[in-house]
């Protein structure tokens, strides 16, 4: 008799549980943000300088005006290239902010083992908190200052500056 009771109980309870279920649905959202990008469109050029003690600065503006010690600044011409600021185009999502970091050398150099020329760099943006503008290019102008020593070695000096932009 206990067995019967048990079977009956099992059948009743088993049936009750087997059909009990409930379903609810939830939606899913995600917002995909465009990747940040930067492209170099123009190199920074300090132009032709006279190799004597002093400095020359190219402004971090669109025109890249060059200023400095008159003894250092030479007139353009005779095959010299015009001083100009470096230009980068940045694309970052509208409504987001990004940081700018320079990976800059302390010296320009003739070739890989030649004389060096002290240099520092500036740019027109803030280090942090720059606002994105979607697919509209945001210009970053790279300027800098070179500091020459007396009897600065003659030659073509060059270096590479890395500019990194990152969403904050």
């Amino acid at each position, binding site marked *: 008799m206990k067995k019967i009771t048990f079977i009956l109980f099992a059948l*009743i309870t088993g049936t009750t*549980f087997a059909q*009990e*279920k409930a379903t*609810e649905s939830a939606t*899913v*959202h995600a*917002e995909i*943000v465009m990747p940040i990008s930067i492209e170099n469109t123009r190199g920074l050029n300090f132009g032709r300088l006279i190799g004597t003690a002093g400095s020359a600065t190219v402004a971090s503006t669109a025109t890249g005006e060059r200023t400095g010690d008159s003894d250092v600044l030479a007139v353009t011409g005779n095959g010299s290239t015009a001083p100009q600021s470096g230009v980068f185009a940045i694309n970052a999502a509208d409504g987001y902010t990004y940081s700018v970091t320079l990976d800059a050398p302390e010296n320009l150099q003739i070739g890989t083992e030649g004389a060096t020329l002290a240099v520092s760099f500036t740019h027109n943006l803030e280090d942090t908190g720059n606002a994105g503008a979607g697919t509209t290019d945001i210009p970053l102008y790279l300027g800098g200052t070179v500091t020459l020593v007396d009897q600065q070695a003659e030659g073509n000096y060059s270096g590479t500056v890395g500019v990194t932009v990152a*969403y904050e």
Partner: protein
Amino acid sequence: MNRIIFILFLLLSSQAFSQASASAKVTSRATIIDPIQIDKTLDLDFGNVISSYNPGSVILSPDGSRTAQGVQISTNFPGTVNPAEAVVIHGNNNYAITLPESFVLYNSQNPDQQLRVNNFTVLPEEGTISDIIKVGATLHLKANQASGFYTNSAGFNVTVSYN
């Protein structure tokens, strides 16, 4: 229910034939429990994810934390981030949770652009007669995934059933 009555009838009647007279009592019991119930309180939101030139994914854990693999997530602008949340009323009975294998989100501006969601995970916060369950998942981005708002109004199903 018809089947249950039939079985009981056979068992009792077989005893009646074996003796001239006999009686027996059977104690029948039934425990009725409330139907299991689930009510959603929050949708699942992966927040803002920065697309990349390579494929990547974002794991949203049921505790609400995000882990990006191959893509970036902005710390200053995370957007709305939360796992799905629902209340399960179970009356202190055991139950099982069934989650989908995968789910697809569509770009609101261009439905051809899609995101795949899978690896749903669940974390119950257990109570006496009801639990709060939180559901996370993994969001997969393709290389150069188009920016925009992705969703799927159909929603994904979470089914709870008594064991």
